[in-house]
Protein backbone atom coordinates (compact mmCIF):
# COMPACT_ATOMS: atom_id res chain seq x y z
CA UNK A 1 0.00 0.00 0.00
CA UNK A 2 0.97 3.67 -0.11
CA UNK A 3 1.72 5.45 3.15
CA UNK A 4 3.19 8.76 4.24
CA UNK A 5 6.48 8.14 6.04
CA UNK A 6 8.59 10.44 8.21
CA UNK A 7 12.28 10.81 7.40
CA UNK A 8 13.39 13.75 9.50
CA UNK A 9 12.78 17.43 10.01
CA UNK A 10 10.71 18.76 7.08
CA UNK A 11 11.17 15.47 5.27
CA UNK A 12 8.23 13.17 4.60
CA UNK A 13 7.52 11.02 1.56
CA UNK A 14 4.93 8.63 0.20
CA UNK A 15 6.37 5.12 0.14
CA UNK A 16 5.21 1.69 -0.93
CA UNK A 17 5.04 -0.39 2.24
CA UNK A 18 3.53 -3.79 3.13
CA UNK A 19 -0.19 -3.85 3.99
CA UNK A 20 -0.95 -4.03 7.72
CA UNK A 21 -2.07 -7.34 9.23
CA UNK A 22 -4.03 -8.25 12.34
CA UNK A 23 -1.54 -8.63 15.19
CA UNK A 24 -3.80 -9.01 18.22
CA UNK A 25 -7.27 -10.50 18.74
CA UNK A 26 -8.93 -7.13 19.36
CA UNK A 27 -7.50 -5.53 16.17
CA UNK A 28 -9.30 -4.52 13.01
CA UNK A 29 -7.93 -3.47 9.64
CA UNK A 30 -9.47 -0.51 7.83
CA UNK A 31 -9.34 0.60 4.27
CA UNK A 32 -8.82 4.32 4.88
CA UNK A 33 -11.26 6.49 2.95
CA UNK A 34 -10.24 9.91 4.31
CA UNK A 35 -7.44 11.17 6.54
CA UNK A 36 -6.29 14.62 7.63
CA UNK A 37 -3.15 16.49 8.65
CA UNK A 38 -3.27 17.87 12.20
CA UNK A 39 -1.45 20.75 13.88
CA UNK A 40 0.06 18.03 16.07
CA UNK A 41 1.63 16.48 12.96
CA UNK A 42 3.42 19.78 12.40
CA UNK A 43 5.26 19.31 15.73
CA UNK A 44 6.57 16.00 14.30
CA UNK A 45 7.32 17.58 10.93
CA UNK A 46 9.26 20.37 12.66
CA UNK A 47 11.23 17.80 14.66
CA UNK A 48 10.07 18.80 18.15
CA UNK A 49 8.85 15.37 19.27
CA UNK A 50 11.65 12.87 19.98
CA UNK A 51 11.67 9.08 19.34
CA UNK A 52 10.33 9.10 15.79
CA UNK A 53 12.27 6.73 13.58
CA UNK A 54 12.98 7.13 9.89
CA UNK A 55 10.25 5.26 8.00
CA UNK A 56 7.48 5.69 10.61
CA UNK A 57 4.00 6.11 9.11
CA UNK A 58 2.28 9.30 10.33
CA UNK A 59 -1.37 10.26 10.71
CA UNK A 60 -3.84 10.04 13.58
CA UNK A 61 -7.00 11.52 12.06
CA UNK A 62 -8.63 8.97 9.78
CA UNK A 63 -11.75 6.98 8.99
CA UNK A 64 -12.56 4.11 6.73
CA UNK A 65 -14.21 0.83 5.99
CA UNK A 66 -13.60 -2.29 8.07
CA UNK A 67 -12.06 -5.01 5.90
CA UNK A 68 -10.95 -7.50 8.56
CA UNK A 69 -11.61 -8.03 12.28
CA UNK A 70 -9.75 -10.01 14.94
CA UNK A 71 -11.34 -12.94 16.78
CA UNK A 72 -12.37 -10.84 19.78
CA UNK A 73 -14.05 -7.99 17.88
CA UNK A 74 -17.77 -8.70 18.06
CA UNK A 75 -19.26 -5.26 17.46
CA UNK A 76 -17.84 -4.54 14.01
CA UNK A 77 -18.41 -6.30 10.72
CA UNK A 78 -16.58 -6.21 7.43
CA UNK A 79 -18.01 -3.30 5.45
CA UNK A 80 -18.83 -1.09 8.48
CA UNK A 81 -17.94 2.57 8.08
CA UNK A 82 -16.10 3.89 11.15
CA UNK A 83 -14.23 6.88 12.55
CA UNK A 84 -11.30 6.03 14.85
CA UNK A 85 -10.21 8.02 17.94
CA UNK A 86 -6.53 9.00 17.82
CA UNK A 87 -6.02 7.84 21.41
CA UNK A 88 -5.72 4.05 21.71
CA UNK A 89 -7.51 2.73 24.78
CA UNK A 90 -8.27 -0.75 26.18
CA UNK A 91 -11.63 0.01 27.79
CA UNK A 92 -10.92 -2.09 30.89
CA UNK A 93 -8.28 -0.40 33.03
CA UNK A 94 -9.00 1.99 35.88
CA UNK A 95 -8.52 4.99 33.59
CA UNK A 96 -10.73 3.78 30.75
CA UNK A 97 -13.42 2.84 33.28
CA UNK A 98 -13.24 6.43 34.56
CA UNK A 99 -13.56 7.89 31.06
CA UNK A 100 -9.93 9.07 31.13
CA UNK A 101 -9.27 7.34 27.82
CA UNK A 102 -6.08 9.17 26.88
CA UNK A 103 -4.58 7.91 30.14
CA UNK A 104 -5.16 4.21 29.33
CA UNK A 105 -2.67 1.99 31.15
CA UNK A 106 -2.54 -0.84 28.63
CA UNK A 107 -2.01 0.55 25.15
CA UNK A 108 1.55 1.88 25.10
CA UNK A 109 4.12 -0.88 24.49
CA UNK A 110 6.91 1.63 25.17
CA UNK A 111 5.44 3.07 28.35
CA UNK A 112 8.85 2.87 30.03
CA UNK A 113 10.13 5.79 27.93
CA UNK A 114 7.35 8.16 29.00
CA UNK A 115 7.70 6.95 32.59
CA UNK A 116 11.24 8.29 32.54
CA UNK A 117 10.02 11.63 31.13
CA UNK A 118 6.69 12.15 32.91
CA UNK A 119 6.61 9.69 35.81
CA UNK A 120 3.75 7.72 34.24
CA UNK A 121 2.78 7.06 30.64
CA UNK A 122 -0.42 8.05 28.84
CA UNK A 123 -2.13 5.91 26.22
CA UNK A 124 -0.65 4.88 22.91
CA UNK A 125 -1.40 7.18 19.95
CA UNK A 126 -1.48 6.53 16.22
CA UNK A 127 1.50 7.81 14.24
CA UNK A 128 2.99 9.88 17.03
CA UNK A 129 6.52 8.65 17.88
CA UNK A 130 7.77 5.56 19.67
CA UNK A 131 7.46 6.97 23.15
CA UNK A 132 3.70 7.20 22.45
CA UNK A 133 3.65 3.57 21.35
CA UNK A 134 5.08 3.69 17.85
CA UNK A 135 1.77 2.68 16.23
CA UNK A 136 1.74 3.08 12.44
CA UNK A 137 -0.56 5.97 11.51
CA UNK A 138 -3.47 6.43 9.16
CA UNK A 139 -2.07 8.68 6.44
CA UNK A 140 -2.04 5.48 4.42
CA UNK A 141 -4.34 3.31 2.33
CA UNK A 142 -4.84 0.77 5.12
CA UNK A 143 -4.35 0.91 8.86
CA UNK A 144 -4.39 -1.50 11.78
CA UNK A 145 -6.67 -0.38 14.64
CA UNK A 146 -5.94 -1.95 18.05
CA UNK A 147 -8.83 -2.35 20.56
CA UNK A 148 -11.26 -1.96 17.67
CA UNK A 149 -14.03 -3.29 19.92
CA UNK A 150 -13.99 -0.12 22.04
CA UNK A 151 -12.57 2.71 19.90
CA UNK A 152 -14.16 3.13 16.47
CA UNK A 153 -17.64 4.64 16.15
CA UNK A 154 -19.90 3.31 13.41
CA UNK A 155 -21.40 5.85 11.04
CA UNK A 156 -24.76 4.44 10.03
CA UNK A 157 -26.23 7.54 8.39
CA UNK A 158 -25.20 8.73 4.95
CA UNK A 159 -23.29 11.76 6.24
CA UNK A 160 -20.28 12.35 3.96
CA UNK A 161 -16.81 11.50 5.31
CA UNK A 162 -15.87 15.19 5.53
CA UNK A 163 -18.60 15.87 8.12
CA UNK A 164 -17.60 13.07 10.51
CA UNK A 165 -13.84 12.65 9.95
CA UNK A 166 -12.92 15.23 12.61
CA UNK A 167 -14.59 13.16 15.35
CA UNK A 168 -11.22 11.37 15.33
CA UNK A 169 -9.51 14.29 17.04
CA UNK A 170 -10.00 18.01 16.55
CA UNK A 171 -13.75 18.30 17.11
CA UNK A 172 -13.58 16.41 20.45
CA UNK A 173 -10.35 18.30 21.23
CA UNK A 174 -11.99 21.69 20.71
CA UNK A 175 -15.03 20.48 22.64
CA UNK A 176 -13.04 19.19 25.61
CA UNK A 177 -11.09 22.46 25.59
CA UNK A 178 -14.37 24.35 25.90
CA UNK A 179 -15.59 22.01 28.66
CA UNK A 180 -12.32 22.61 30.51
CA UNK A 181 -13.00 26.34 30.28
CA UNK A 182 -15.81 25.77 32.81
CA UNK A 183 -18.36 27.78 30.83
CA UNK A 184 -21.29 29.27 32.79
CA UNK A 185 -24.13 31.42 31.58
CA UNK A 186 -22.91 34.90 30.61
CA UNK A 187 -19.27 33.85 30.27
CA UNK A 188 -16.75 35.36 27.90
CA UNK A 189 -14.19 32.88 26.57
CA UNK A 190 -10.93 33.88 24.88
CA UNK A 191 -9.27 31.46 22.45
CA UNK A 192 -5.63 31.80 21.36
CA UNK A 193 -4.99 30.18 17.97
CA UNK A 194 -7.61 29.97 15.21
CA UNK A 195 -6.24 26.81 13.62
CA UNK A 196 -8.51 23.77 13.43
CA UNK A 197 -8.45 23.16 17.19
CA UNK A 198 -9.18 26.82 17.94
CA UNK A 199 -12.04 26.81 15.40
CA UNK A 200 -13.69 23.85 17.15
CA UNK A 201 -13.04 25.37 20.58
CA UNK A 202 -14.82 28.54 19.46
CA UNK A 203 -17.81 26.65 18.06
CA UNK A 204 -17.97 24.35 21.10
CA UNK A 205 -17.83 27.29 23.51
CA UNK A 206 -21.01 28.63 21.87
CA UNK A 207 -22.59 25.15 21.95
CA UNK A 208 -21.86 25.07 25.69
CA UNK A 209 -23.52 28.42 26.26
CA UNK A 210 -20.76 31.04 26.19
CA UNK A 211 -22.12 34.55 25.81
CA UNK A 212 -19.10 35.88 23.90
CA UNK A 213 -16.00 34.29 22.37
CA UNK A 214 -12.94 36.36 21.57
CA UNK A 215 -10.57 34.71 19.09
CA UNK A 216 -6.88 35.62 18.73
CA UNK A 217 -4.54 34.85 15.81
CA UNK A 218 -2.71 36.79 13.15
CA UNK A 219 -3.81 35.07 9.93
CA UNK A 220 -6.69 37.09 8.43
CA UNK A 221 -8.28 34.01 6.80
CA UNK A 222 -8.38 32.17 10.11
CA UNK A 223 -9.77 35.22 11.92
CA UNK A 224 -12.50 35.52 9.28
CA UNK A 225 -13.45 31.87 9.82
CA UNK A 226 -13.67 32.57 13.56
CA UNK A 227 -15.93 35.57 12.87
CA UNK A 228 -18.13 33.39 10.70
CA UNK A 229 -18.72 31.25 13.80
CA UNK A 230 -19.79 34.30 15.78
CA UNK A 231 -16.53 35.18 17.53
CA UNK A 232 -15.09 38.66 18.01
CA UNK A 233 -11.46 38.72 16.86
CA UNK A 234 -8.16 40.28 17.88
CA UNK A 235 -5.16 40.36 15.55
CA UNK A 236 -2.21 39.10 17.60
CA UNK A 237 0.15 40.91 15.25
CA UNK A 238 -1.06 44.23 16.64
CA UNK A 239 0.19 43.25 20.11
CA UNK A 240 -1.00 44.21 23.57
CA UNK A 241 -3.51 41.37 23.80
CA UNK A 242 -3.65 41.62 27.58
CA UNK A 243 -4.83 45.25 27.56
CA UNK A 244 -7.28 44.72 24.71
CA UNK A 245 -8.85 41.76 26.50
CA UNK A 246 -9.10 43.75 29.73
CA UNK A 247 -10.96 46.49 27.86
CA UNK A 248 -13.15 44.00 26.01
CA UNK A 249 -14.28 42.57 29.37
CA UNK A 250 -14.75 45.84 31.25
CA UNK A 251 -11.65 45.33 33.36
CA UNK A 252 -12.38 41.81 34.57
CA UNK A 253 -10.59 39.54 32.10
CA UNK A 254 -12.14 36.56 30.25
CA UNK A 255 -13.86 33.93 32.45
CA UNK A 256 -12.33 31.11 30.47
CA UNK A 257 -9.10 31.16 28.45
CA UNK A 258 -8.00 28.50 25.95
CA UNK A 259 -4.49 27.90 24.58
CA UNK A 260 -5.16 26.30 21.17
CA UNK A 261 -1.64 27.18 19.99
CA UNK A 262 0.78 24.79 21.70
CA UNK A 263 4.55 24.52 21.81
CA UNK A 264 5.33 26.34 18.56
CA UNK A 265 3.71 29.68 19.30
CA UNK A 266 5.01 32.55 17.22
CA UNK A 267 6.36 35.66 18.83
CA UNK A 268 4.94 39.12 18.35
CA UNK A 269 7.14 40.74 20.97
CA UNK A 270 10.72 40.61 22.15
CA UNK A 271 9.76 38.24 24.97
CA UNK A 272 8.66 35.70 22.37
CA UNK A 273 11.92 35.99 20.48
CA UNK A 274 13.64 34.90 23.69
CA UNK A 275 11.77 31.56 23.52
CA UNK A 276 12.59 31.03 19.84
CA UNK A 277 16.29 31.35 20.66
CA UNK A 278 16.09 29.15 23.74
CA UNK A 279 14.20 26.45 21.87
CA UNK A 280 16.72 26.49 19.02
CA UNK A 281 19.54 26.15 21.55
CA UNK A 282 17.60 23.27 23.17
CA UNK A 283 17.55 25.16 26.48
CA UNK A 284 13.81 24.72 26.61
CA UNK A 285 11.85 22.17 24.61
CA UNK A 286 8.65 24.19 24.14
CA UNK A 287 7.85 27.85 23.44
CA UNK A 288 5.20 28.93 25.95
CA UNK A 289 4.76 32.37 24.40
CA UNK A 290 1.00 32.06 24.00
CA UNK A 291 0.53 30.11 27.22
CA UNK A 292 2.04 32.89 29.36
CA UNK A 293 -0.33 35.39 27.78
CA UNK A 294 -3.27 33.03 28.32
CA UNK A 295 -2.47 32.69 32.01
CA UNK A 296 -1.93 36.42 32.54
CA UNK A 297 -5.20 37.30 30.81
CA UNK A 298 -7.40 34.92 32.81
CA UNK A 299 -9.76 36.54 35.30
CA UNK A 300 -9.57 35.75 39.02
CA UNK A 301 -10.98 32.31 39.75
CA UNK A 302 -11.27 31.67 36.00
CA UNK A 303 -10.56 28.51 34.01
CA UNK A 304 -7.36 28.00 32.02
CA UNK A 305 -7.75 25.27 29.40
CA UNK A 306 -4.75 23.99 27.42
CA UNK A 307 -5.52 21.72 24.45
CA UNK A 308 -2.31 22.91 22.73
CA UNK A 309 0.42 20.26 22.91
CA UNK A 310 3.48 20.68 25.13
CA UNK A 311 6.20 18.04 25.28
CA UNK A 312 8.81 18.94 27.85
CA UNK A 313 10.04 21.93 29.80
CA UNK A 314 9.24 25.63 29.54
CA UNK A 315 10.85 28.71 30.97
CA UNK A 316 9.33 31.50 33.01
CA UNK A 317 6.05 29.73 33.59
CA UNK A 318 3.87 32.17 35.57
CA UNK A 319 2.76 29.74 38.24
CA UNK A 320 2.41 32.63 40.67
CA UNK A 321 -0.31 34.15 38.49
CA UNK A 322 -2.32 30.92 38.52
CA UNK A 323 -1.93 30.73 42.29
CA UNK A 324 -2.45 34.39 42.98
CA UNK A 325 -5.69 34.49 40.98
CA UNK A 326 -6.89 31.09 42.22
CA UNK A 327 -7.39 29.86 38.65
CA UNK A 328 -8.39 26.34 37.57
CA UNK A 329 -6.01 24.61 35.18
CA UNK A 330 -6.95 21.71 32.90
CA UNK A 331 -5.12 20.11 29.98
CA UNK A 332 -4.21 16.79 28.35
CA UNK A 333 -4.60 14.67 25.28
CA UNK A 334 -8.28 14.49 24.49
CA UNK A 335 -10.34 11.64 25.97
CA UNK A 336 -11.78 11.23 22.48
CA UNK A 337 -13.91 8.14 23.19
CA UNK A 338 -16.05 10.15 25.63
CA UNK A 339 -17.21 12.57 22.97
CA UNK A 340 -17.79 10.37 19.92
CA UNK A 341 -21.46 9.56 20.46
CA UNK A 342 -22.67 12.97 21.76
CA UNK A 343 -20.77 14.91 19.10
CA UNK A 344 -21.92 12.63 16.28
CA UNK A 345 -25.47 13.34 17.47
CA UNK A 346 -24.83 17.07 17.34
CA UNK A 347 -23.59 16.68 13.74
CA UNK A 348 -26.62 14.57 12.84
CA UNK A 349 -28.95 17.20 14.32
CA UNK A 350 -27.21 19.83 12.19
CA UNK A 351 -25.97 21.88 15.16
CA UNK A 352 -22.51 22.03 13.62
CA UNK A 353 -20.93 21.25 10.26
CA UNK A 354 -17.29 20.25 10.88
CA UNK A 355 -16.50 20.26 7.15
CA UNK A 356 -16.77 24.06 7.14
CA UNK A 357 -13.14 24.40 8.28
CA UNK A 358 -11.65 22.35 5.41
CA UNK A 359 -9.61 24.56 3.09
CA UNK A 360 -7.79 21.99 0.94
CA UNK A 361 -8.22 18.50 -0.51
CA UNK A 362 -5.23 16.52 -1.81
CA UNK A 363 -4.55 12.97 -2.90
CA UNK A 364 -2.32 11.15 -0.38
CA UNK A 365 0.36 11.10 -3.09
CA UNK A 366 0.70 14.87 -2.66
CA UNK A 367 0.84 14.80 1.15
CA UNK A 368 4.43 16.14 1.23
CA UNK A 369 3.28 19.34 -0.58
CA UNK A 370 0.27 19.49 1.72
CA UNK A 371 2.49 19.38 4.83
CA UNK A 372 4.52 22.27 3.47
CA UNK A 373 1.41 24.27 2.62
CA UNK A 374 -0.15 23.69 6.06
CA UNK A 375 3.09 24.47 7.90
CA UNK A 376 3.58 27.78 6.11
CA UNK A 377 -0.16 28.48 6.11
CA UNK A 378 0.07 29.36 2.42
CA UNK A 379 -3.03 29.87 0.26
CA UNK A 380 -5.15 30.46 3.38
CA UNK A 381 -4.60 26.84 4.34
CA UNK A 382 -6.54 25.89 7.48
CA UNK A 383 -7.23 22.18 7.26
CA UNK A 384 -6.08 19.61 4.73
CA UNK A 385 -8.00 16.42 4.01
CA UNK A 386 -6.23 13.62 2.11
CA UNK A 387 -7.78 10.97 -0.12
CA UNK A 388 -5.57 7.86 -0.02
CA UNK A 389 -7.06 6.48 -3.23
CA UNK A 390 -7.27 9.52 -5.55
CA UNK A 391 -4.85 9.71 -8.46
CA UNK A 392 -2.27 12.47 -8.19
CA UNK A 393 -3.22 15.47 -10.32
Amino acid at each position, binding site marked *: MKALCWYGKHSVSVEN*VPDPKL*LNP*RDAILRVTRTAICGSDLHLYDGYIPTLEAGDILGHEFMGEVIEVG*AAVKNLRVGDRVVVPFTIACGNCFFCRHQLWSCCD*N*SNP*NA*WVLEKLYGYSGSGLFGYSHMMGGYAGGQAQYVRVPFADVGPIKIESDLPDEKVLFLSDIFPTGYMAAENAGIQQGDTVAVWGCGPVGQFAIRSAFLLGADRVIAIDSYPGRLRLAEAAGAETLDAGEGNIQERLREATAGAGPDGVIDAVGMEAFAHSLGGFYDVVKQQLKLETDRPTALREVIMACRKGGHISVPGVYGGYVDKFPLGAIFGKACHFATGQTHVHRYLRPLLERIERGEIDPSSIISHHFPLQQAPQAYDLFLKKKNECIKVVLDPWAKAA
Partner: protein
Amino acid sequence: MSDSRFTSLSAPERWSWIGAGAALLGYAALRRGALAIPAAAAGSYLLLRGAANRRPGAELAHRPGRRRLARSVMINRPPDEVYAAWRRLEDLPRFFPHLESVTVRDDKHSHWVARSRLSGKLEWDCEITDDQPGRTLAWRSAAGMGFKHSGEIHFRPGPPQRGTRVELRWSYRVPSAWRGMLALVGEAPGQVAREGLRRFKQWMEAGEIATIAGQPHGPRTRLAELAPLFSPAPPVHEPTPLRPEWLERTGTA
Protein backbone atom coordinates in the same frame (compact mmCIF):
# COMPACT_ATOMS: atom_id res chain seq x y z
CA MET B 1 40.07 -16.44 52.86
CA SER B 2 41.90 -13.63 51.10
CA ASP B 3 39.74 -11.48 48.84
CA SER B 4 41.66 -10.39 45.76
CA ARG B 5 39.62 -7.18 45.64
CA PHE B 6 41.26 -5.93 48.78
CA THR B 7 44.87 -7.06 48.38
CA SER B 8 47.27 -4.40 47.11
CA LEU B 9 49.54 -5.10 44.17
CA SER B 10 53.32 -5.24 44.09
CA ALA B 11 54.87 -2.03 42.73
CA PRO B 12 56.10 -3.59 39.42
CA GLU B 13 52.68 -5.15 38.73
CA ARG B 14 50.91 -1.93 39.59
CA TRP B 15 53.10 0.14 37.26
CA SER B 16 52.79 -2.34 34.43
CA TRP B 17 48.97 -2.00 34.51
CA ILE B 18 49.28 1.77 34.52
CA GLY B 19 51.78 1.62 31.67
CA ALA B 20 49.62 -0.73 29.60
CA GLY B 21 46.60 1.52 30.14
CA ALA B 22 48.52 4.64 29.11
CA ALA B 23 49.84 2.86 26.01
CA LEU B 24 46.34 1.86 24.92
CA LEU B 25 45.07 5.41 25.50
CA GLY B 26 47.96 6.78 23.47
CA TYR B 27 47.20 4.32 20.66
CA ALA B 28 43.54 5.41 20.66
CA ALA B 29 44.44 9.09 20.55
CA LEU B 30 46.89 8.71 17.67
CA ARG B 31 45.23 6.09 15.49
CA ARG B 32 41.49 6.86 15.64
CA GLY B 33 39.58 4.43 13.36
CA ALA B 34 37.41 1.49 14.37
CA LEU B 35 39.63 0.25 17.21
CA ALA B 36 40.02 3.61 18.89
CA ILE B 37 36.92 3.47 21.07
CA PRO B 38 37.45 -0.02 22.54
CA ALA B 39 41.15 0.74 22.98
CA ALA B 40 40.36 3.96 24.84
CA ALA B 41 37.83 2.17 27.05
CA ALA B 42 40.19 -0.68 27.89
CA GLY B 43 43.08 1.78 28.40
CA SER B 44 41.13 3.95 30.86
CA TYR B 45 39.98 0.85 32.73
CA LEU B 46 43.53 -0.54 33.16
CA LEU B 47 44.89 2.87 34.10
CA LEU B 48 42.21 3.49 36.72
CA ARG B 49 42.49 0.01 38.24
CA GLY B 50 46.28 0.37 38.41
CA ALA B 51 46.01 3.79 40.00
CA ALA B 52 43.53 2.38 42.53
CA ASN B 53 46.04 -0.39 43.37
CA ARG B 54 43.64 -3.18 42.36
CA ARG B 55 44.16 -5.99 39.89
CA PRO B 56 42.00 -5.52 36.79
CA GLY B 57 39.23 -8.11 36.53
CA ALA B 58 39.30 -8.88 40.26
CA GLU B 59 35.68 -7.80 40.58
CA LEU B 60 34.63 -10.64 38.27
CA ALA B 61 36.16 -13.24 40.57
CA HIS B 62 34.37 -11.84 43.57
CA ARG B 63 31.31 -13.75 44.77
CA PRO B 64 28.28 -11.76 43.78
CA GLY B 65 26.37 -10.14 46.61
CA ARG B 66 22.78 -10.96 47.32
CA ARG B 67 20.33 -8.34 46.01
CA ARG B 68 16.66 -7.88 46.62
CA LEU B 69 13.99 -5.99 44.78
CA ALA B 70 10.26 -5.52 44.99
CA ARG B 71 7.96 -4.23 42.25
CA SER B 72 4.20 -3.92 42.46
CA VAL B 73 1.29 -3.21 40.16
CA MET B 74 -2.46 -2.71 40.60
CA ILE B 75 -4.58 -4.96 38.38
CA ASN B 76 -8.25 -4.25 37.86
CA ARG B 77 -9.34 -7.91 38.36
CA PRO B 78 -10.11 -9.92 41.53
CA PRO B 79 -7.23 -11.67 43.39
CA ASP B 80 -8.41 -15.24 42.60
CA GLU B 81 -8.40 -14.57 38.89
CA VAL B 82 -5.01 -12.85 38.97
CA TYR B 83 -3.46 -15.63 41.06
CA ALA B 84 -4.85 -18.30 38.76
CA ALA B 85 -3.37 -16.64 35.67
CA TRP B 86 0.07 -16.31 37.26
CA ARG B 87 -0.10 -19.91 38.49
CA ARG B 88 -0.14 -21.11 34.87
CA LEU B 89 3.64 -20.83 34.90
CA GLU B 90 3.94 -21.93 31.29
CA ASP B 91 2.28 -18.62 30.31
CA LEU B 92 4.93 -16.46 32.01
CA PRO B 93 7.16 -16.18 28.89
CA ARG B 94 4.37 -14.06 27.37
CA PHE B 95 5.11 -11.38 29.96
CA PHE B 96 8.85 -11.74 30.45
CA PRO B 97 10.39 -11.39 27.01
CA HIS B 98 13.70 -12.88 28.17
CA LEU B 99 12.04 -16.15 29.13
CA GLU B 100 11.95 -18.71 26.33
CA SER B 101 9.94 -21.40 28.06
CA VAL B 102 8.69 -22.74 31.35
CA THR B 103 7.97 -26.46 31.48
CA VAL B 104 5.84 -27.59 34.38
CA ARG B 105 6.96 -31.01 35.70
CA ASP B 106 4.52 -31.45 38.57
CA ASP B 107 2.69 -29.43 41.20
CA LYS B 108 5.92 -28.14 42.69
CA HIS B 109 8.62 -28.45 40.02
CA SER B 110 9.27 -26.70 36.73
CA HIS B 111 12.14 -26.15 34.27
CA TRP B 112 12.96 -22.65 33.01
CA VAL B 113 14.88 -21.52 29.92
CA ALA B 114 15.85 -17.87 29.40
CA ARG B 115 18.01 -15.95 26.98
CA SER B 116 19.95 -12.87 28.02
CA ARG B 117 21.53 -10.44 25.58
CA LEU B 118 24.59 -10.50 27.78
CA SER B 119 25.08 -14.09 28.86
CA GLY B 120 23.14 -16.07 26.26
CA LYS B 121 21.08 -19.10 27.22
CA LEU B 122 20.36 -19.82 30.90
CA GLU B 123 18.49 -22.82 32.32
CA TRP B 124 17.39 -23.71 35.80
CA ASP B 125 14.96 -25.82 37.75
CA CYS B 126 12.49 -24.22 40.09
CA GLU B 127 10.73 -25.49 43.17
CA ILE B 128 7.58 -23.96 44.64
CA THR B 129 8.10 -23.43 48.36
CA ASP B 130 4.76 -21.87 49.30
CA ASP B 131 1.44 -21.89 47.49
CA GLN B 132 -1.68 -20.25 48.94
CA PRO B 133 -4.31 -19.99 46.19
CA GLY B 134 -5.55 -16.45 45.69
CA ARG B 135 -2.83 -15.03 47.95
CA THR B 136 0.79 -16.07 47.58
CA LEU B 137 3.22 -18.10 45.53
CA ALA B 138 6.90 -18.51 46.47
CA TRP B 139 9.69 -20.37 44.67
CA ARG B 140 13.41 -20.99 44.64
CA SER B 141 15.78 -22.03 41.88
CA ALA B 142 17.63 -25.34 42.36
CA ALA B 143 21.16 -25.10 43.71
CA GLY B 144 24.01 -24.67 41.27
CA MET B 145 22.06 -23.85 38.12
CA GLY B 146 21.56 -20.89 35.80
CA PHE B 147 19.98 -17.81 37.31
CA LYS B 148 20.23 -18.28 41.07
CA HIS B 149 17.31 -16.65 42.75
CA SER B 150 14.26 -17.02 44.88
CA GLY B 151 11.05 -15.09 44.65
CA GLU B 152 7.55 -14.63 45.89
CA ILE B 153 4.46 -12.94 44.57
CA HIS B 154 1.56 -11.69 46.69
CA PHE B 155 -1.98 -10.92 45.61
CA ARG B 156 -3.95 -8.68 47.98
CA PRO B 157 -7.31 -7.01 47.46
CA GLY B 158 -6.77 -3.35 46.56
CA PRO B 159 -8.95 -0.47 47.78
CA PRO B 160 -12.66 -0.82 46.88
CA GLN B 161 -13.20 -1.09 43.09
CA ARG B 162 -9.47 -1.12 42.37
CA GLY B 163 -8.85 -4.83 41.88
CA THR B 164 -5.72 -6.55 43.14
CA ARG B 165 -2.43 -5.24 44.44
CA VAL B 166 0.26 -7.55 43.06
CA GLU B 167 3.72 -7.47 44.60
CA LEU B 168 6.64 -9.37 43.12
CA ARG B 169 9.80 -9.84 45.23
CA TRP B 170 13.05 -11.24 43.95
CA SER B 171 16.22 -12.10 45.73
CA TYR B 172 19.10 -12.97 43.38
CA ARG B 173 22.82 -12.93 42.80
CA VAL B 174 24.39 -11.16 39.85
CA PRO B 175 28.15 -10.45 39.69
CA SER B 176 28.56 -6.79 40.57
CA ALA B 177 30.52 -6.05 37.40
CA TRP B 178 27.53 -7.16 35.38
CA ARG B 179 24.96 -4.93 36.95
CA GLY B 180 25.84 -1.81 34.98
CA MET B 181 26.08 -3.78 31.76
CA LEU B 182 22.68 -5.39 32.30
CA ALA B 183 21.17 -1.93 32.65
CA LEU B 184 22.84 -0.88 29.39
CA VAL B 185 21.22 -3.69 27.42
CA GLY B 186 17.83 -3.15 29.08
CA GLU B 187 18.08 -6.18 31.38
CA ALA B 188 18.44 -4.58 34.80
CA PRO B 189 16.40 -6.91 37.05
CA GLY B 190 14.25 -4.06 38.37
CA GLN B 191 13.28 -3.06 34.82
CA VAL B 192 12.72 -6.69 33.78
CA ALA B 193 10.34 -7.09 36.73
CA ARG B 194 8.52 -3.84 35.95
CA GLU B 195 8.06 -4.67 32.24
CA GLY B 196 6.93 -8.21 33.08
CA LEU B 197 4.31 -6.96 35.51
CA ARG B 198 3.16 -4.35 33.01
CA ARG B 199 2.53 -7.02 30.38
CA PHE B 200 0.86 -9.29 32.92
CA LYS B 201 -1.51 -6.42 33.77
CA GLN B 202 -2.28 -5.89 30.06
CA TRP B 203 -3.05 -9.58 29.68
CA MET B 204 -5.35 -9.54 32.72
CA GLU B 205 -7.18 -6.29 31.95
CA ALA B 206 -7.10 -6.01 28.17
CA GLY B 207 -6.92 -9.72 27.39
CA GLU B 208 -3.92 -9.23 25.11
CA ILE B 209 -0.49 -7.64 25.14
CA ALA B 210 0.01 -4.38 23.25
CA THR B 211 2.47 -4.71 20.40
CA ILE B 212 3.60 -3.14 17.16
CA ALA B 213 5.86 -6.00 16.04
CA GLY B 214 5.06 -6.85 12.46
CA GLN B 215 3.35 -3.60 11.49
CA PRO B 216 4.38 -1.85 8.25
CA HIS B 217 6.83 1.02 7.93
CA GLY B 218 8.79 2.69 5.17
CA PRO B 219 12.44 1.83 4.42
CA ARG B 220 14.48 2.23 7.63
CA THR B 221 17.96 3.63 8.10
CA ARG B 222 20.54 1.46 9.90
CA LEU B 223 20.21 3.57 13.04
CA ALA B 224 16.44 3.14 13.24
CA GLU B 225 16.90 -0.63 12.94
CA LEU B 226 19.22 -0.67 15.95
CA ALA B 227 16.88 1.24 18.24
CA PRO B 228 14.76 -1.69 19.55
CA LEU B 229 17.83 -3.84 20.29
CA PHE B 230 18.53 -2.22 23.64
CA SER B 231 14.98 -1.62 24.75
CA PRO B 232 13.92 -3.00 28.13
CA ALA B 233 10.58 -3.66 26.44
CA PRO B 234 11.52 -5.58 23.29
CA PRO B 235 8.49 -6.07 21.05
CA VAL B 236 6.42 -9.21 21.52
CA HIS B 237 7.07 -11.09 18.31
CA GLU B 238 4.62 -13.90 18.58
CA PRO B 239 1.10 -12.56 18.53
CA THR B 240 -0.63 -13.64 21.72
CA PRO B 241 -4.06 -15.22 21.53
CA LEU B 242 -6.78 -13.61 23.62
CA ARG B 243 -6.64 -14.54 27.32
CA PRO B 244 -9.13 -17.41 27.38
CA GLU B 245 -11.41 -16.07 30.14
CA TRP B 246 -11.31 -12.51 28.92
CA LEU B 247 -14.45 -12.42 26.78
CA GLU B 248 -16.77 -14.06 29.31
CA ARG B 249 -15.42 -12.37 32.47
CA THR B 250 -14.37 -8.95 31.29
CA GLY B 251 -15.62 -8.48 27.78
CA THR B 252 -15.89 -5.20 26.07
CA ALA B 253 -16.57 -2.30 28.42
